[in-house]
């Protein structure tokens, strides 16, 4: 798989506090990578590191295959954009002036594409209104427009829907999906609003206490979160024989437990197992959301916060 961003044993220490510890990540090209973790887990610290705002104290990361210690990393960063925490915009300037300023910083020779960019983020009618008078959603979209100014193919958004109203959340979500589909931009989106993230992400990374707990694709997460019937039996071999015979999809969880991913006739199953001399000890229906999966994964407690 082609990765746009990878990190290996990355660490960041602020005096005695370890914000990142032996952290690793793999962001595939073309993905919308949901970076999930609670407040203080280390999401923003990692984003600051890869944006070059801070230096790691241990380990390394690679952007487009270029190591962070390589002088060529600056050139690589020209292909990425980011909105870290709050949108980085001049509050005393209009949306157009903000974009002109960013175009100059990047060194783009012409401002011709600015109206199109403003249209893309829905700010084409802001005229001479200064950014300080914008709503939070408008500021967020202007921040994204600035991040898009250099036509990046990798965009990092740190908590992009934090503090937005429902309409603002929908607008930002649609913009992200549009950019991913139409411009093939890879996204790394950090968030702790899991429901919102589950509508976007194609890949997930779960971070806790500065450490990557698990990385998985949305398909793998869907499989893990699928509605199923968890059955505990006295003889797992007998259960697999019966389920194979009934042509049902299942996965074995332990020596006595299995998840069945189908709607089953309980009586039929119980009779078939009885014929094999196998007892049903328990049987219950399970459905996991991203939220419950996350809570199960992280443990739900306060880890070193």
């Amino acid at each position, binding site marked *: 798989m082609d990765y746009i961003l990878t990190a290996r044993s990355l660490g960041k220490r602020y005096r005695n506090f370890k914000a990142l510890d032996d952290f690793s990540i793999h962001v595939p090209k073309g993905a919308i990578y949901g970076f999930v973790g609670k407040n203080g887990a280390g999401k923003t610290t990692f984003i600051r590191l890869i944006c070059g705002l801070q230096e790691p104290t241990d380990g390394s990361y690679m952007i487009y295959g270029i190591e962070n210690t390589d002088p060529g990393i600056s050139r690589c960063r020209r292909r990425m954009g980011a909105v870290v925490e709050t949108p*980085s915009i001049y509050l005393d300037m209009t949306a157009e002036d903000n974009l002109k*300023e960013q175009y100059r910083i*990047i060194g783009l020779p012409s401002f011709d594409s600015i109206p199109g960019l403003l249209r893309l983020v829905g700010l084409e009618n802001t005229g001479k209104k200064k950014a300080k008078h914008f709503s939070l959603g408008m500021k967020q979209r202007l921040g994204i427009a600035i991040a898009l100014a250099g036509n990046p193919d990798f965009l990092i958004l740190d908590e992009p829907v934090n503090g937005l109203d429902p309409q603002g959340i929908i607008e930002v979500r649609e913009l992200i999906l549009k950019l991913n589909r139409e411009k093939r931009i890879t996204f790394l989106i950090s968030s702790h609003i899991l429901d919102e993230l589950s509508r976007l992400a194609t890949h997930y990374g779960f971070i806790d206490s500065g450490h990557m707990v698990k990385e998985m694709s949305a398909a793998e997460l869907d499989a893990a979160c699928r509605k199923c019937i968890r059955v505990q039996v006295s003889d797992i071999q007998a259960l697999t024989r019966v389920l194979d015979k009934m042509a049902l999809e299942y996965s074995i969880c332990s020596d006595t437990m299995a998840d069945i991913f189908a709607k089953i006739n309980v009586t039929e199953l119980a009779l078939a197992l009885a014929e094999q001399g196998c007892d049903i000890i328990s049987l219950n229906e399970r459905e996991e959301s991203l939220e419950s999966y996350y809570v199960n994964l992280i443990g739900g407690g306060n880890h070193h916060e």
Partner: protein
Amino acid sequence: MSRLLSADFAKLKKNKFFWICMPGMFLFGIFTAVMHYIAMQQYGENEADITNILFIYALTVVFLIPAFVSLFVGTEYSDGTIRNKMIIGHTRAGIYLSDLIVCSVAGIGFCVSYIIGALLAALPLYTIDAGILEGVTKLVLCSFIMSVAFTALCILTAMLCQNKALTAVINILAACFLLVISLYVLNKLSEPEVYPGYSVMTDSGEVEVMENEPNPDYLRGTEREVYQFLNDFLPTGQAINITQRGAFSQSPGLLAAYSASIIIVSTGIGVFAFKKRDVK
């Protein structure tokens, strides 16, 4: 770095504080020239001398530059826009130097604005002796280098302190503190070596002649050299000297050399520390 300079100069063109200070200094130049001329006329003193008012800006910019730099650079941190420069791969040295160059140009702009205002008002009113032009030009150039040195010190604080309000407080307080030190140093250097002798008539009608008396506060030897060094080295000391037409400084060349050393050392320290700094 040309891209950063282009962006920062465009930002300067839209900076309100800059556009308040530029005409402000211009009008201040006209005001001081006219007021000095009126005062000379009223008190019937010697002909108005342009050098009495031409360098007053040197002291004014000591307060303007810290305020301007704190706001100009502080906005980069308060609005978070400094991150835009780093994220797309500009080097920290480039970002630092670009801000230094743009703020230095603004500082020199304040000086030039005052000089133009003062000259416009003074040329029809004052008699200008062509013989002073060389000295005036040297002092003006010296003041420009002094303003850049002062800007370099303010940039050092502004780039390393990520809080706009705190930067402004530190820079302005530091300017005041340095100015007080420089005034104290100048006061010590101005002490006469001897109190001149005088004659008094006693009650008995006799005239008593008092001899010249040495001044115990007059600085001598190494102590005087140290005070003279501080007077010439500190940007505020230079500002006072330039305002007083270089009366207490050793030479404009030395002032320029000290300013250049301040620019080089403070920029070197600033770039090094800024490279190590974590930006939020």
